[in-house]
């Protein structure tokens, strides 16, 4: 779960990491009122879960109330696409904070290194820009040090890292303190990524986190009530609906609705649909014992996406029995009117019984296919409109 900048800064404040104070606003008048309280110059920053918002025009410095109004109305409601094609993300709110007098711009982060199974700290004296580009241009400009999992990570351990990164001598103590506290945020808040870019030194030589990018492990939310509340707010209506129904759903752009059992098989189903020339509308893992009500829920979520013109059910029954799935499909079709073709592929445990149940029910608009590949081709054909 990714946090917005201001939510990240709230976590920083909780752990004693200095960051500019400010206010969040979701409309222009609110942003202007915040700017008036904070004073000028102030920064008006788009709150979106993606990098590169500065380049996209999502961060502006307002010198007076007119500029504050202008920038807030420009930014609220704009769409920002990420550097790797993520999104676009609609800007629903801005964070207004006091302007900072910047003397130096550094970079500091702590991420979970899955390959090494350790937390990795990264520090650079060249902050404020794309850190991947900095490291690509000259690897020596980015100091990377793993945290030893068997030892405490304290200010002394942190200090050797910021020294190696070549930060200004008079900023070392404060920067080491920030790095040690970032590690504390990782451990205590279950953060798997914390990035501060830039970490600045102000003209009066204070080290301050000017930005905050934080990812919290979704599996840890049972022990973080405050963060769990943030997780409950999802922008996309289908994703919200799926969440309420306890389904694992990811919205995509296409017109072929998809339900499969198991995350791996579901990803694979999206891939074969794409290979067949179709465009998947979603990822939806029906999970283990998929009974009738789970199927009704899944179909309702898929159908609520108005782009969807045909649906593929790809089930390989393991512990899940195909006759149960077939009964679920029959029950679901009595409860909701799909109004579009449904292609069903059942294989695995009790698939003959499942196929017999579907054949007997003789549902309109239901098409059976024996293999995953045939089912993908069929649903793409029935969905139409895709490239």
């Amino acid at each position: 779960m990714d946090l917005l900048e201001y939510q990240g800064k709230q976590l920083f404040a909780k752990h004693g990491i200095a960051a500019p104070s400010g206010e969040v606003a979701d409309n222009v008048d609110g942003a202007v009122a915040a700017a008036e309280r904070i004073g000028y110059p102030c920064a008006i920053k788009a709150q979106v879960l993606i990098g590169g918002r500065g380049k996209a025009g999502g961060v502006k410095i307002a010198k007076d109330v007119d500029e504050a109004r202008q920038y807030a109305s420009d930014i609220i409601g704009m769409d920002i696409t990420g550097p790797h094609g993520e999104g676009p993300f609609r800007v629903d709110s801005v964070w207004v904070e006091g302007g900072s007098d910047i003397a130096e711009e550094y970079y500091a982060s702590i991420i979970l290194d899955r390959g090494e199974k350790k937390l990795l700290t990264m520090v650079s004296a060249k902050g404020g820009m794309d850190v991947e580009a900095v490291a690509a241009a000259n690897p020596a400009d980015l100091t990377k040090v793993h945290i030893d999992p068997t030892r405490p990570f304290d200010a002394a351990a942190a200090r050797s890292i910021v020294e190696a990164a070549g930060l200004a001598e008079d900023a070392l103590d404060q920067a080491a303190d920030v790095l040690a506290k970032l590690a504390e945020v990782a451990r205590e808040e279950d953060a798997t990524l914390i990035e501060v870019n830039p970490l600045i030194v102000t003209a009066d030589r204070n080290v301050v986190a000017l930005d905050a990018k934080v990812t919290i492990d979704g599996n840890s939310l049972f022990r973080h009530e405050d963060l769990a509340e943030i997780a409950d707010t999802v922008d996309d209506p289908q994703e919200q609906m799926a969440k309420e129904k306890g389904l694992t759903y990811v919205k995509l752009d296409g017109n072929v609705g998809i339900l499969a059992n198991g995350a791996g098989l579901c990803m694979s189903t999206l891939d074969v649909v794409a290979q067949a020339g179709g465009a998947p509308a979603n990822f939806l893992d029906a999970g283990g014992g998929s009974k009738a009500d789970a199927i009704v829920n899944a179909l309702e979520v898929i159908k609520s996406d108005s782009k969807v013109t045909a649906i593929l059910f790809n089930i390989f029954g393991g512990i899940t029995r195909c006759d149960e799935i077939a009964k679920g499909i029959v029950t679901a079709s009595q409860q909701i009117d799909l109004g579009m073709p449904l292609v069903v592929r059942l294989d695995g445990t009790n698939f003959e019984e499942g196929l017999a149940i579907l054949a007997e029910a003789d549902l309109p608009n239901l098409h059976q296919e024996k293999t995953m590949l045939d089912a993908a081709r069929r649903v793409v054909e029935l969905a139409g409109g895709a490239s």
Partner: protein
Amino acid sequence: MSIIVDGNTKLAVSGLTGREGSFHGLRNKAYGTDLVAGVTPGKGGQDVEGTPVFDTIKEAVTEAGANTSMIFVPARFAAPAINEAIDSGVETVIAITEGIPVLDMLETYWKAKEAGVRLIGPNCPGVLSPGKANVGIIPDSFFDPGPIGVVSKSGTLTYQIGNELKQAGTGNSSIVGIGGDPIVGTDFIDVLKLYEADPDTELIVMVGEIGGDAEERAAEFIAAEITKPVVAYIAGFTAPPGKQMGHAGAIISGSSGTAQAKKDALEAKGVRVGESPTETAAIAVETLRA
């Protein structure tokens, strides 16, 4: 032979008195796995259809001779249960539980390493050695004994491929589900190493998915250390960046962890990568019979 579980496995199931734990534990027993104990704190002295239940895994080891522990307890209690298993004296811990906080697993990973205990999972379907033992939730009916070793991050995708191999008239030495979490106890490389040393394994099928760099690391390892043929499949070519696709570990971060990068890394080292589960099984059969 086979790897990780076999006729010598003596299994203790943590969570055997729960609904899922009893269903799968008893299924494993029915398959022929030597289920020697259940473990549930506070329920020591009871039994589940004749299998004695102990309060601690340590007692299951000393009283019932358990050498393998399966963890079936809810996510928020699972990391402590795995840690208890690591300290109990078993050789292997297989953690099925999904949803364990990853930083807990970070600690547990190093604890298992230090103790020399093999940890499989978490968030995995377990290990099946056809005809010998099944520890976990893998449906055994799709797998016959045979020369193909399978290692996979995904459950159902593995069943799909296993079923196609069976229909093609071949089978498996073992099937190892390593799990879909960002941090798992045993990676592709560890399992590849075991299959390389296993005389009954002639070919290895490796099933990966988006996220992390375990597949890329495996590609390097295969080129350097593995003499047996490896066939791979990668899921998630259509996954958008920044979205978690079901498994906690299945996420493209920025531009890293993509399916294409994994496929390219494997193919660069001479590993054939199937376009679909069906093609992957077909390549495996074709390679085996060549």
